[in-house]
């Protein structure tokens, strides 16, 4: 059994004008596809062959850089697509909103802190909202395709929200203006999906 490139849950142009169709198409059909293929190649002949992605990430420190980079790239992008929606944006409600307010002061403060983590990650990487094992919420960022599910992650927990800040995620539309891309991301965040992950 090998991993397959997950289908995008909406059309390439569905997130326009916030995220452009060309970026979505290359990001999904080239970058995400590349991570998927390279992950399968990296797992061939190892004891991780046939394991689910969660197990791969949970023991990533014991395996090759190719498993880490492509396992992370495969998982992170799948999550990222689900965390956006043409009907997204706005803000969450109910106990999820309450949890964000309790942890960060207000929804606006959460947004600012998350945006800052995304804007200041130097080089390629991801910004995350993570649910820790004690139930609290934390914002962090990781380099390259690392994520909070990796056994050697600095901040370990369940990713609730993730934002790709590799330049490939925004360069065609925003070039050097990463902060503009980050604001547009909040216009398409699928808070229902984030809430599902928060509840699990």
């Amino acid at each position, binding site marked *: 059994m090998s991993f397959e490139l997950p289908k995008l849950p909406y059309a390439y142009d569905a997130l326009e004008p916030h995220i452009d169709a060309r970026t979505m198409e*290359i990001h999904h059909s*080239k*970058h995400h596809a*590349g991570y998927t293929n390279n992950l399968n190649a990296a797992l061939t002949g190892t004891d991780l062959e046939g394991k689910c992605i969660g197990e791969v990430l949970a023991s990533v420190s014991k395996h090759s*850089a190719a498993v880490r*980079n492509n396992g992370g790239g495969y998982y992170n992008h799948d999550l990222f697509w689900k965390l956006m929606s043409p009907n997204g944006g706005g803000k969450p409600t109910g106990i999820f909103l309450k949890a964000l307010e309790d942890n960060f002061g207000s929804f606006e403060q959460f947004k600012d802190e998350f945006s800052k983590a995304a804007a200041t990650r*130097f*080089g*390629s*990487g991801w910004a995350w909202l993570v649910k820790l094992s004690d139930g609290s919420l934390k914002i962090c960022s990781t*380099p*390259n*395709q690392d994520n909070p599910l990796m056994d050697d992650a600095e901040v370990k927990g369940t990713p609730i929200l993730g934002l790709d800040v*590799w*330049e*490939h995620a925004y*360069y*065609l539309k925003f*070039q*050097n203006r990463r902060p503009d891309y980050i604001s547009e991301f909040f216009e398409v965040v699928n808070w229902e999906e984030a809430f599902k992950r928060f509840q699990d």
Partner: protein
Amino acid sequence: MKHELPKLPYALDALEPFISERTLEFHYGKHHQAYANNLNNLIEGTSFENADLIDIIMKSDGGIFNNAAQVYNHTFYFMALKPRGGGQPRGKLYDALVYSFGSFDNFKTEFSKAGATLFGSGWVWLVADKKNKLRIIQTSNAGNPLCDDLVPIMTLDVWEHAYYLDTQNARPKYIENFWELINWELIETRFENL
């Protein structure tokens, strides 16, 4: 000391069709410029305020290091490009490349591979060690060989911003284009002045 960008020795459209004018407008005009601006802001009122760039690179860390090294790295990269460049180096550099890598083509293949396989953002370098032996190394993000006692001779920027407008995910295509733009005379001089 205020750190300023060098003027490029060619027009922004001069590297077409290998590197587009639009890419250079952003890469030199926005990214390189922002690193210099950030550096100048960050060192204000610190012990690095009057230090030269290499001194800062050798002694700083965090944001000051990142911006200082990116100013240096980009200058080193841009200055060694030229319109109608490419071909092969001559003289001592050519001999040293053949000696270290077997042939010029082997060097090119190894350097290109180092560029294509660097994961994330970073740089590929041809460097000389203390004994003037040539090596190819990769550094991630703002990494600079001087910090490891290695002298840079040539470099290739493989941050996605260096090529995404031109070749998108096809980094190898950008690397092929890079070989058409190399100013070997300048790189020969760097090597001969070691």
